[in-house]
């Protein structure tokens, strides 16, 4: 079935640096979602993208969906220690199946 590959698996940054995680699929996706999981916590929904080329912003977070709807990215500007966690991309089918990427774990050094 479809899979989404997420890179990098780990990213260590100094506070204030930018961070980007990428999600790639070999096939066209109808939608993509992003979730954040804090250490010891549970995944929390951040955003959903459905349109080709869509860009959405949430404060310092910028989400993009590629023109071909095969890739997506999450960019964080000027990271803060509160940004630490694992970021997952994923997609749903109408049949109730969800597939997630393997996640990118971000650590931020103060």
């Amino acid at each position, binding site marked *: 079935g479809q899979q989404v590959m997420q890179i990098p698996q780990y990213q260590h940054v100094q506070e204030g640096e930018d961070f980007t995680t990428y999600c790639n699929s070999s096939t066209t996706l109808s939608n993509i979602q992003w979730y954040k999981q804090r250490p010891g916590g549970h995944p929390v929904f951040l955003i959903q993208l459905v349109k080709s080329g869509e860009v959405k912003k949430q404060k310092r977070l910028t989400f993009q969906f590629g023109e071909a709807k095969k890739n997506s990215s999450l960019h964080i500007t000027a990271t803060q220690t509160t940004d630490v966690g694992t970021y997952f991309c994923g997609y749903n089918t109408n*049949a109730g199946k969800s597939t997630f990427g393997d996640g990118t774990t971000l650590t931020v050094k103060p």
Partner: protein
Amino acid sequence: DTAVSQTPKYLVTQMGNDKSIKCEQNLGHDTMYWYKQDSKKFLKIMFSYNNKELIINETVPNRFSPKSPDKAHLNLHINSLELGDSAVYFCASSQTLSTDTQYFGPGTRLTVL
């Protein structure tokens, strides 16, 4: 008020035992899920239920048996526990099958000794 709750939060047990994890959502959602997250944090869907009916069984061993007594509850029973079952199990819900936002429970950390 907790939207999706799971009990217990921690479960430590011996190989071969049978255990259950309970999940409840008070969001009025139709669809519920069970996920397994291993030590590498890979998040894999196990089951999805819609209005108490099984929709997806993602090649999970039949030692795992979900049960949905009503659409607000989805419990997971595991027979003959194995070392490889050690993981964090998350319950989640969404408004409908085609609604994409999922709300996750706090997770149950299962350790099999």
